[in-house]
């Protein structure tokens, strides 16, 4: 079957009716609520259940934690895998309910095993995967996510995701070359719904919408140095959202590529 021909149809279905997988046709589950600042990033205004979402780029961990915050405050349990040692104060600043968050300090090689156990009872899993799963592992993972109606957020590109949020640009402000301290960061994020700009973290630590009239330096190329008005929060002129390449953005992590390559070799031998 030609995957490329199915993609636009799926895209259209999910845009119009909020149906992103075949299962969703039969049983439409409302998404988990997210912070109002972040909700325009998602096609259905919230974190979809039964689906895999990727959040990539600089500040992806902050964005992932901010996404789960509203759900944890509604007694949904969230687990983090492979996040090193997160700082509790920032988790609390981003609005996550500490009583419903658990961090798994398990080796990166075991993320899939840990995730498959957690899927049974957790509502949201936030994972920085230690390696790319093989096609069959991925299919089983996705089937299980769908069956349990839980949300998995990956901080690396994984194929099979239904929504991809990529933070393309970050601009910290407040440091003032030695005269201040970091206050907030203006991020530009690209998702299926277009390009969005917001402050993450804002001055209080939580995501905040961009104050009207903020000027932004347009990055890159010939237009560097010109100013654009910030009112066009979601310019929908984005390229058709294709599935990102499996290893994009992961090339800089030698551990990731080593484990992934090793597992491929082992699976061939076995």
């Amino acid at each position, binding site marked *: 079957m030609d995957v490329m021909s199915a993609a636009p149809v799926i895209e259209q279905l999910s845009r119009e009716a909020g149906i992103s997988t075949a299962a969703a046709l039969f049983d439409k589950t409302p998404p988990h609520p997210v912070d109002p600042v972040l909700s325009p990033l998602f096609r259905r205004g919230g974190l979809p259940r039964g689906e895999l979402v990727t959040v990539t780029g600089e500040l992806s961990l902050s964005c992932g934690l901010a996404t789960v915050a509203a759900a944890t405050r509604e007694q949904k349990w969230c687990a983090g895998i492979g996040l090193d040692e997160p700082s*509790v104060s920032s988790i609390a600043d981003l609005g996550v309910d500490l009583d419903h968050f658990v961090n798994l*300090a398990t080796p990166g090689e075991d993320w899939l095993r840990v995730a498959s156990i957690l899927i049974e009872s957790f509502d949201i899993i936030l994972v920085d995967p230690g390696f790319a799963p093989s096609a069959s592992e991925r299919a089983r993972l996705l089937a299980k996510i769908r069956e349990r109606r839980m949300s998995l957020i990956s901080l690396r590109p994984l194929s099979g995701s239904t929504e991809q949020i990529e933070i393309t640009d970050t601009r910290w402000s407040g440091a003032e070359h030695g005269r201040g301290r970091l206050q907030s960061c203006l991020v530009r994020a690209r998702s299926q719904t277009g390009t969005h700009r917001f402050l993450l973290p804002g001055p209080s630590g939580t995501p905040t919408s961009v104050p009207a009239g903020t000027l932004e330096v347009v990055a890159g190329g010939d237009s560097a140095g010109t100013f654009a008005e910030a009112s066009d929060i979601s310019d929908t002129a984005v390229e058709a959202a294709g599935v990102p390449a499996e290893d994009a953005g992961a090339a800089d992590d030698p551990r990731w590529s080593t484990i992934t390559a090793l597992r491929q070799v082992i699976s061939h031998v076995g």
Partner: protein
Amino acid sequence: MSDEPGRILVLTVPDWPAVAAAVEHDIAPGRPVAVLHAGKVIAANASARAAGITAGNNKRAVGYRCPEAHVALWDEEADNRHFSAGVGALEDLVARFTLLSPGTLAIPLDSLRHGYADEADAVETLVSALVDDTGWEFFPGIADTVFAAVLAAGQARRVEPGQTVDFLSAQPITTLEYAGAEATALIEVFLQLGLRALGDFARLAAKDVNARFGAFGRHLHDLASGREGAPLTDHVRGEQLDVELDLDTPTTRSDPLGFLARQLGADLLAKVRRQGLVCTQITIELDAAAGQSSSRTWRIEDMQENAIADRLRWQAEGWLAGVSTGAENSEPRQNPGSRHNSGSGRSTRPGHAPLSAQADPQALDIVDEPAPDAEDFAEDGIIALRLIAAELTTPIGATRSLFDENTGQITHTLERLQGLFGPDAVLVPGLQGGWDPAETNLWTPWQQAAVPERSPAAPWPGALHAPRPTTVEHSAVDVLAADGSSVEARPSGLEAAPATIRFPTGQTETITDYSGSWPIESGWWDPSRAVYRTRLQVVTDAGRALLLSKEHGQWYLTGRYR
């Protein structure tokens, strides 16, 4: 006996911190004792007061007025410990009582109605029993509310039934300090408003107080006008329930330990059940033949001997493995939080970890393991097991909340992961005191009691404000100025503008923006706790924001905004 249902008897030991200090330091009665906190006298016993020492004096003033006085530093833990040990006699005399604070306890008088002829008789019997048992002086006070009874106890008087409001209205407004440290600021405001007595304050309309001073002001208003707040929680009988087993031959194998622990756990639970109580937390202590010991407290939702045996096995395996490989610190990636929890687990060691331990690379090794020699330890193994019921409650208090979703399943899943990857692999977040996120982090293994090392209530001047880094780490980096020399930090600021940062991997990034540096100087009065640190936030050309700190002449990467 009065028919008033809400009558409360409060017994208080005057100058309790001074009495506790005398017990703690074994000081002969009659010798003057003064207790200092934050440089000021907070309590002095009668003979010290006779010599002219009053609360608020500093140490020099004490020495000047009464050179022979014993000056002790305030020890909150000793205060609590001696008091709860001392009131043991009461457990046999009254059915219900509450420890309000060290030195003060409350007894609802209706619980004494059947045993004694009247209030005076009850008070006399209880006070003489307590005085015979402890040798301390107790002041009784009786009133209709707890707050009024505490004030009455300070004056050793009985307020007639129904007279409580009149009694309260004559008391000075400063007595509201009873409500805690937050009240101090409000008392100041009340004094400025000309409200000198509780009666003046109580005459204000409750809704005006609520509008102007919020919920806390409302609470103070309730106290002042003699309205009772939440009922007191009863003191649970403080008997220590524990079981012990000495092994004939030391063992390092966890299966026989688990087997023994199951029997031992069943014994303990039977003992707890006989008291009509339920155990929700258990402390497991293991003794090694060479004299080391490991102690951890576990919270188990569904307390059974099998669950206890699992915990004991995990604890023994983790301890023995940690000792024989010494690997605990070499892989911080796999064990975030373990170094923050050194207080709660591993091996007991005297004293406390130094405050700066987190930031000090040398101290890291000390914090976790005073590891015995691996070989003799492995030969000898564990020689004794001890299980202590760490938290006892009544059966109704142990039932789960009705409103939490699927906690049972969550517990089951997490326990399974703990079984597979060890108890330290599943961590729940908590906060403690500290300046930087690395210090405020308190990751505790699932179902273990969190043991904060630093008080979150204490002030931490210079603590980092939001936005805070999302992950913490601790690796040495070089921060270079434009000319390639290392950037020096002074309390007044940086010597040069930082231009480049070099990571331990050798990779470098250009610094595009940096914050002002802000120093922490703390504990300079005590060399073992002194902290001199300068923090700096930088943004690199990769768009990455980092938190750096400089200590002992070395820059460290302490947090990443990810």
